[in-house]
Structure formats: structure tokens, C-alpha cells
């Protein structure tokens, strides 16, 4: 296959764009897609301070790399989730990334050291899938660290596949509240909820993996062991089967939703936020926030 732009040897076939690209022009394409997402959705301004949620996986490291190259003030935030074997290996990938970028600043939080629990035991004690306490912990800590550090916005590495799979799941169960909030930008809200954005929304997971390999970003290839059997993996597999037979379906599904579907579900006014009576972080329920209630139940004597 030849590069659509220069006729050189292509390294990737992008059927949804009816194109193939050599390394140079794929990297150019990728950067262009990320810049377009940032601009189209007015995600942040050059002077904003950005906090990037990094896990050691391909998406978050590629996102951080791109934002640093674009010249943004982008610091990283890594949360050690306390998952045996997986967490140390993830930490090592983030440390390796930092070795080559001395200008990068990383904030670290350890669930075990700072909050007294780890995700595997949280899942066991709460009798919930691990993704539930993991998601709650991450959302809470992203927001708290961003506020405490004086950041304007939190960036996550969610890509086109992630968001299409979430949309598919939310539509299967008609979770109208979630559908109303699914958008590449979640605006900040009075009461201390910081703005959250997803600059990789225009690129697929395969494209971020390709970008990482071609630019030498060493990432965590192994899947999170707690995610085995997660519905999101099933939805991604189904959507990729569709994509293979009908290229472009994923982006039409997702971008069409942003344009035509999401506004119909969007709440005009969300629930009022009040400060948690214990930690002061915003919560939509009077009293203590969900994170404080979970932490108390996890750190109480068994």
C-alpha cells in the first residue's frame, strides 16, 4: 500500500478515511486530528494549565506526549491503584516516559498509601466489579488534584473506540442521564467540579497504538487484569466487527451522536453541587460524597 500523500510505503491503512499513510504523514495526520478536536470543541487555551491523567497505557502517554510537543503546560497525574504486578509495571512505563522528557512534571497519588485501600480489596469488600470503585476513585482524585494544583482543565486519553463503546453500552440500557453527559467536554461547574476534556476523541485506539510504536513510546501492553470480562471489551469487539465490514461506522455512530443525539438528552441544569461535609469536594448529594462514604466502608475494621 502506498501513502496517499507522498506515494511512499504506507505503515497504516485507514479505511475510514479511504487513506494509507507513511510514518511521516501518519504522524502529521494524527497531530492534525488531535489539534482539530482541541480547536473544534474549544477544549483549552494556550495559557491554560492542563492536568493529564496518565496510566502508563498507550492513550494517556500518547496524549501527554502530543500536548507537550504542542507546547501546552501539561503536567501528568498518575494514580497507583494497588493492583498487584500491574501497578508496578504501569509505574515503570510512566517513569520510562519521564526519563526522555525532563521538562515533564508528574504528580503521584497512591490509593494504598494515601487512602488506605487498593482496588482489588475494594472490589472484594464492596462486592462490585473492580471498574466501579476504580472509576469513582479516579474521578474524585483527578478533580481534587486539579483543584489543589490550580489547573484549569483535566485531560483524559479517551479515544473514539472508548467513547463509541460507552455510547453503545449506554444506548443498550438507555441510560439517559449518562447519554446527556457524554460529550468531549464536560464543563466546569460551580461548587468545584473542574472542566474535563478528551482530545483523542477523533482517533481510534489502533491509531494511538500505531502512534506509540512509531514514535518509540513504550507503553503498558498488558490489559488491566481487573478488566477481564468487562463489557466495554465486548462492545469494542462488536463495533470493530462492524467497522471491518463497514468502514467509518464507528465515527459516524459517535460523531452523529454528538451532533444530533446528545443535545436531546442534555439536562439544562444538573443537580446542584454542595461541598462534601467531610472533604469539601463537590457532591450532588447533601452530606458526604460517594468517595468519602466508600473510603469509610473500606477502611473500617472488617
Amino acid at each position, binding site marked *: *500500500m502506498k501513502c496517499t500523500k507522498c506515494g511512499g510505503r*504506507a*505503515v*497504516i*491503512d485507514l479505511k475510514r478515511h479511504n487513506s*494509507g499513510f507513511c*510514518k511521516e504523514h501518519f504522524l502529521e495526520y494524527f497531530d492534525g486530528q488531535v489539534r482539530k478536536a482541541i480547536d473544534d470543541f474549544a477544549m483549552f487555551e494556550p495559557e491554560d494549565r492542563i492536568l493529564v491523567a496518565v496510566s502508563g*497505557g*498507550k*492513550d494517556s502517554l500518547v496524549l501527554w506526549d502530543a500536548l507537550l510537543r504542542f507546547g501546552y503546560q501539561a503536567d501528568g497525574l498518575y494514580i497507583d491503584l494497588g493492583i498487584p504486578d500491574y501497578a508496578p509495571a504501569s509505574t515503570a512505563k510512566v517513569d520510562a516516559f519521564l526519563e526522555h522528557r525532563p521538562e515533564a512534571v508528574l504528580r503521584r497519588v497512591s490509593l494504598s498509601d494515601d487512602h488506605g485501600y487498593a482496588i482489588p480489596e475494594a472490589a472484594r469488600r464492596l462486592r462490585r466489579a*473492580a*471498574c*466501579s470503585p*476504580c*472509576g469513582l476513585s*479516579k474521578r474524585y482524585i483527578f478533580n481534587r488534584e486539579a483543584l489543589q494544583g490550580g489547573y484549569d482543565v483535566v485531560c*483524559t486519553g*479517551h479515544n473514539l*473506540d*472508548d467513547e463509541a463503546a*460507552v455510547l453503545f453500552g449506554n444506548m443498550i440500557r438507555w441510560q439517559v442521564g449518562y447519554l446527556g453527559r457524554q460529550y468531549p467536554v464536560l464543563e466546569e461547574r460551580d461548587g468545584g467540579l473542574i472542566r474535563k476534556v478528551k482530545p483523542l476523541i477523533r482517533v*481510534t*485506539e*489502533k491509531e*494511538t*497504538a*500505531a502512534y506509540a*510504536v*512509531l514514535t*518509540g513510546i513504550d507503553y503498558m*501492553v*498488558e*490489559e*488491566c487484569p*481487573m*478488566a477481564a470480562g*468487562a463489557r*466495554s*471489551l465486548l462492545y*469494542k*469487539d462488536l463495533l*470493530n*466487527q462492524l*467497522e*471491518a465490514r463497514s468502514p467509518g461506522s464507528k465515527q459516524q455512530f459517535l460523531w452523529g451522536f454528538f451532533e444530533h443525539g446528545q443535545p436531546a438528552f442534555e439536562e439544562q441544569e444538573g443537580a446542584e453541587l454542595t461541598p462534601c461535609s467531610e472533604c469539601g469536594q463537590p457532591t450532588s448529594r447533601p452530606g458526604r460524597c460517594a468517595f468519602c462514604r466508600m473510603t469509610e466502608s473500606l477502611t473500617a475494621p472488617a
Partner: protein
Amino acid sequence: MASDKPCIRVVMTVPERKEWEFRGRHSVEKILRRLELNPESVIVIHGDTLLTPDEMVENGMEIEVRSAISGGAA
């Protein structure tokens, strides 16, 4: 089963390490089809570059097929 005869070696490391051997000259697309892998869900690595599905591989080459999909809740 590994052998000493020249072959195309195909490696996957995730979710578990697996190796396959093919002989002769085949397209990446054909190899992925034989392994029942969706080209939309994987990247194919050779050295420090990537191979597109139409690329031909032959005896003596080693390629890595890497899943591009990760999961779990955000």
C-alpha cells in the same frame, strides 16, 4: 512447535504469549485471517515499523501481532 526450518514467526504477547509459524510467502491479511484476528483490532509490528494488511511477509521474518484494544471503565 518451533523448528529449525526457515519460516515466518508470528508472536502475540497479550493476553498470553503465543507463537505461530507459517511457511512461504503470505500477506499480513491472510495471516490475520488464519489467526481469526480482526485487522481493526490489532497492529502488526515488524522491527520498528508497522505492516499494512496487503504487505507480504516471507520465511525468515518475525512479526508481532499486538492487540490495540484495552478495556475497563473510564
